[in-house]
């Protein structure tokens, strides 16, 4: 333990996040091991930032690439309160239903729901105040994930896709 230690959040596939301690000299595998997490063979390790940059989502795929388990923390962008996502999928195929044909795009498992929503709103030309009340709801459920959640938390092992309906929030009445 040194004063260079800092706190990170680890997101296991389809599970709740856990807090862990990282040191720049640690490997990602060591950080995970200290938190009692052993990635399954072939599982991808993505490093994510705590803050969503709010930028437009362009293209049909993300650029984020996973890191090898033996990569040192210093060689990644992992910082204090940064995120490590462990997921069997390299990409998650997101399909969104609204008026008209479904729209699809590939996202890294570390993508936040807020970012997927931003893409979906643009894909369906929903802009301005009219877009404000539209949220993503997991298909065939009434589950509307928080904007701060990540796809890695929602997509469990065994699949690399997720479907959302773009639904309008109901304004409380009565």
């Amino acid at each position: 333990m040194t004063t260079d230690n800092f706190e990170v959040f680890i997101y296991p596939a389809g599970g709740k996040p856990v807090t862990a301690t990282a040191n720049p000299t640690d490997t990602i595998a060591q950080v995970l091991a200290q938190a009692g997490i052993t990635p399954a063979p072939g599982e991808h390790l993505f490093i994510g930032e705590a803050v969503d940059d709010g930028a437009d989502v362009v293209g049909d795929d993300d650029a984020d690439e996973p890191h090898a388990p033996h990569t040192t923390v210093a060689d990644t962008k992992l910082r204090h309160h940064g995120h490590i996502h462990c997921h069997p999928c390299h990409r998650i195929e997101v399909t969104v239903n609204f008026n008209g044909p479904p729209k699809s795009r590939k996202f890294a498992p570390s993508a936040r729901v807020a970012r997927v929503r931003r893409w979906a709103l643009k894909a369906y030309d929903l802009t301005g105040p009219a877009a404000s009340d539209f949220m993503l709801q997991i298909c065939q459920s009434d589950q509307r994930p928080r904007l701060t959640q990540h796809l890695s938390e929602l997509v469990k092992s065994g699949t690399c896709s997720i479907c959302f309906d773009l639904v309008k929030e109901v304004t409380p009445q009565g």
Partner: protein
Amino acid sequence: MELAEQIMEADLVSPEFLSGAAAGAWGRVHHDQAQWPRALFWLAVPPRVRSPDRYYVLVDATGYRCAAPTGTFADPQTLEQLAPQHRPKGKEGSRFAKVFRTDWENGRAFYHPFDRVAASSHADWVQTMPNKVWTPNHTIVDWLDEFCSLFQSEDYLGVHLAAP
């Protein structure tokens, strides 16, 4: 320490809460007068003209998590309910304006199914907004995130403070 308080304290050190705090979305404020079952939080909000970058919310978490918290905007010094002229305003008729209305219960609670006071007098919300029904699986993170999300709307206009 009663069980509800223990559960709340555990949720306030959960990665979900800490991650949101680290991202600057919300935080807890320790205040001598905000003792259990009350707790003071701040919510970060997008910039608007002559408006703060955060609002403080005083929560009463009696019965947490079996019961939903209730809360409203508060002065972080006095913990008094925030005066109407300092409260966030929304575009007329918008969901934002409805949830943060002050013409219901004198603004002492949020007009939303996640608010214990509001939910208790609107039994029909279970049918009309089933995905917003508070359950013991929800946490203070869901509560804070729900109201934080509302501020991301362009319907949020700021407080319209008088020009200095």
